[in-house]
């Protein structure tokens, strides 16, 4: 489900952080999608987990009407096949945005953000956040 974050139209700096909690191997990428369908990767998680510490996305005036698309891919090869399906429901994904008119705002992932492979081993969470 698409979310909206009010950033305003000033030179205030917008920052973003991602927190993922799962027993699977997680990898997160943050894209900035500008008008014209141009997607650019602006941050990726470290190799240790799918988390991304707070980082500067840019100035509000430059980001207005663009999207932050945060995609997390989770591989459940750490656990037995019998647990793949149920552990999909235990994933925690929290997206934190700061610096806009709404101040400090946290979003969780929604059910319709999740897509998984037919056997449940790979799970993808795609969260688009519109910056207005």
């Amino acid at each position, binding site marked *: 489900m698409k979310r909206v974050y009010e950033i305003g139209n000033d030179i205030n700096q917008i920052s973003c952080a991602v927190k993922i*909690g799962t027993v699977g191997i997680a990898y997160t990428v943050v894209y900035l999608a500008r008008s*014209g369908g141009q997607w650019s990767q602006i941050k990726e998680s470290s190799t240790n987990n799918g*988390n991304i510490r707070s980082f500067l996305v840019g100035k509000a005036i430059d980001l207005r009407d663009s999207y932050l698309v945060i*995609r997390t891919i989770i591989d459940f090869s750490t656990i*037995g096949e019998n647990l793949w399906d149920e552990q999909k429901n235990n994933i925690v994904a929290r997206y934190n945005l700061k610096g806009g008119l709404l101040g400090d705002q946290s979003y969780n992932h929604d059910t319709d953000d999740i897509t998984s492979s037919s056997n449940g081993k790979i799970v993808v969470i795609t969260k688009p956040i519109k910056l207005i």
Partner: protein
Amino acid sequence: MKKLLLIIIVVFSCTNIYTQKEGSLTIENIETPNSPAFMLLDKAPSSIERPNSTKAFALSLINSLENNTELPKNYAVEFTPFWFFKNKEMTALKYLGYDKNYNQNYFNGLKMFSISMAFINTPDSITNQEISNISIGIRANIISIRHKEDSKFVKKEYDKAVKNLKAINEGMPILDLEAEDQQKAKKEYDQKLQEYLNALDNIDSISKLSEIQNKRLLFALDGAIAYNSFFTENDFSSNRFGRFGAWLTANYSYKNNENTYLNIYATGRYLRDGTAIVNDEYIRQDFYDVGGKLEFEYKKLSLSYEYLYRIADSEDTYRSNGVLKYKINDKISLTGSFGKNFGDNDNLISLLGINWGFLTGEEKTVLK
């Protein structure tokens, strides 16, 4: 046939509990009985065991070989709370017991503690009346030390998996955020992504990290605690304290090669028993058990011998038995035990614990 019918009934009744969370119970959730709730009453095939289940939920059925014409009367359910809760701080490496520098956390097993509950019917040795026992137990791995090569294995497989995820990400479709009909665009994206992910199913699992759970630990210290109450004459008001026990088991595993292990166990157990009758009165006795077990594992077969010496208020006694386990596949195994239990009366151990998935072979039967 009667046994099969009962198993189906038990599995169905457990499904009612389990479906609240999961929606289905598979036959693979049925395990051979070694939960502390069984072990407290000396009804498990072995008195010295390591917690080995990573399952969210498991059901155990057990019957005595002497009563093989009767329906199984002893059941235990065991579940691991870890799998039922979300944890925002959890990562794959933490779950596997390593920090970001691949140093092992020796106390990692504590979070995987499990809770078990057993229902055991036994005849009273004097009156021959049926006694219904209910026991509850908790067990956990307190300390675990892995072989050095396991850390290397985790690092190698983990790096490989992350690399693989990056490659997967690069080929993913892009969500059209500017489409006039956003609902349609989302639907199309979901469909393309689904097709892309389904294609990945056909590729063999690149990471083999889950194998680490099946690798033998170099050293492990496990703890368990259990409590039992019993009822006589099918009367609820007859509820009495049965037993309380707490025990620690240390295990050292010598690895000869990938298929051959020699496992040495040492155990100490405190037991308070309230089931003995003296002059028509139930009395309480304290026992201290010490002993060990030697287990030889070769491929799917394991043979072990265990001996426990019991220091009692009245007369010391011992338990001595052999256990044979055969792992038919990753989900199905068979356990048999034969020997002498504690005490002088009713002390024959002749147990057969069957993972009832055996009846269906490789087939995965989903009961809904």
